[in-house]
């Protein structure tokens, strides 16, 4: 499952659960009961909710920190390096073709305003991104899983032709002649 689909399903599940609580409260709201005992119960529920978020959620979010795109940058030996430069409104790479299954280090910068370097797989799904900023070189490491033409789209608003700032990076099958 893609990160996008997982994010959508997790969000949807949480929102639907929340909606169910609201609908139930609304449905039961007509018959009045005494407030103080009800409030005590609500506090107890609140405490349970809070502790669940702390005990279950907090370790999960800390665990998820393992997947930091920046952490891999230093850890890679002998990567394929692509220098990426962005300018209103085009991309420039010092090589246009890389090999799949081997880490690629993108060194991304801009000559004018902020741009966003977004990599899209042949099916149109985003697989990686990093900001392109003047005066800074952002290093992003990505390993392409499959060969194909990957589109580069601009993901930071950069003016009139932001939506037309496109390019392509070709990924060849592992072990090909372009390594």
């Amino acid at each position: 499952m893609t990160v996008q689909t997982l994010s959508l399903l997790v969000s949807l599940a949480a929102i639907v659960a929340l909606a169910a609580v609201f609908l139930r409260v609304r449905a039961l709201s007509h018959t009045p009961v005494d407030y103080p005992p009800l409030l005590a119960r609500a506090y107890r529920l609140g405490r349970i909710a809070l502790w669940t978020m702390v005990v279950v959620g907090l370790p999960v979010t800390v665990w998820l920190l393992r997947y930091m795109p920046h952490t891999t940058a230093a850890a890679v030996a002998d990567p394929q390096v692509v220098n990426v430069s962005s300018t209103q409104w085009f991309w420039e790479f010092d090589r246009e073709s890389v090999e799949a299954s081997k880490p690629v280090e993108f060194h991304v910068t801009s000559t004018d305003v902020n741009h966003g370097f977004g990599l899209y797989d042949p099916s149109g799904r985003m697989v990686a991104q990093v900001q392109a900023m003047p005066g800074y070189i952002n290093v992003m490491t990505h390993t392409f899983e499959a060969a194909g033409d990957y589109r580069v789209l601009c993901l930071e608003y950069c003016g009139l032709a932001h939506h037309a700032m496109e390019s392509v990076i070709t990924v060849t099958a592992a072990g090909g002649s372009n390594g």
Partner: protein
Amino acid sequence: MAEAQAAATGGTAAMDRGRTWVVLYLATTGVVILLMMVFGLLMRLAQSEWIVLDPAVFYQLLTVHGIGMVGIAALGGIAILWHFLSAHVPLRSAALAINLVLFLVGVVMILWAVFIGGFAPAWTFLYPLPAISGGVWEPWAGVLDLTGVLLIGVGFLILCLEMGRAIVASQGGLGRGLGWHVLFGGSTDKPPAPTVVAGTMVVIVTTLALVAGATIVVMTILNLLFPSLAIDPLFAKNMIYFFGHVFINATIYMGVAAVYELLPRITGRPWKASRVFLGAWTLSTTMVLIIFPHHLLMDFAMPRWTMVLGQVLSYVNSFPVLAVTGLGALAIVHRSGIRWDLVSTLLLIAMFGWMAGVIPAVVDATVSVNYVMHNTLWVPGHFHFYLLLGLLPMIFAFMIHLARDEDVTARGGDLTAILYLLFGLGFVAMFLMGGWASVPRRWAVHMPEWLVWDRIATVMAAGVIVLAGVFVAIFLARIPRLLRHG
């Protein structure tokens, strides 16, 4: 003491001068919201390829819609907060007048700069875009626009300082406004009213946001006038996102005063500031100030610890909203014998929209998710959720409440609120689906495979606008009467 004062002014609140200004604020808010919504609809129509818009015009609309909605969210939010806060602490309504004048002057300058000067760097005006437009606009337009933004900021700063002054004078300090004497000092004094706690938090965070915002706006203006005065782009980005994040979040903490004040009146159950409640607000106050790095997760030049904080604290930040404020609102209506009508239903929707809108944000603040979702339509999906379905229902509920002469007897009309919810849900869901499909945000022209989400969103947006129009019309129709009595 606060209670005594509230009781004393409660009956005559309708007569004070602040109220006339509050009505004018809401009238402005209603009209501008509808206009900005129509601009939003035009953008959605263009992305749907149902109308043709020159990309230059699309980005002008994007800029005006963004800054206009953010500004008007604050204007409407302040109207709510001021109205209820003034029953607890004595406020001078001259500040309201000054702010409204500065606001309107600023709006004219912005509209001029954008639609005549062509200035369109989005509401975030990331440096150095205002100065480097590829020949689309000239520096004067940027100077005019940002000076307008600065005037609006100064107006809101004056309001914050006046509210801060009044809270310090009546409560004995901002710490006491947040109830720290009860929370940390173990004092048996009465805790402040929930609205005072919210007001104190708003004063603290909005003032800091405005100071940071004014600083970067002035620096950008100076850079436009004297290009040799360069700014570090990463510093500018931090300043802008600190300002933007805190300011737009503060609007919902303003609006929530309507929930704290109206639900107790409608249900006859008190909303008291318990220690848990006070703890939650103090936590929110700190969190909202330090989680802004979740906007910079894809700036790998940022120190790594800011990413860790951005991710973990964004999650922690959802606790107070989900586990305390939301639960409090649910408890107060649960088995209360409430008869639902337009106002109470809007308030319930507001709490749902706020809580639910937090969820996609927490998901996206996870670095590994942000890596493939940042700057997609997922982001507008999140903030339209909590603004369109969280903040706006608070504002509409307050408008209707005033239009009904502050009488809380149930008077029906909840069907329109439910329709608003359904269209609104459809509209934001299509942004979220766009994010799922990797559609970049802020694109004037969309690819054919994305049109299905755009077109459903367009239809839903039209429905939202009609219903928002109904709420605003109910209020506007009552204005002559409200002003005569004010």
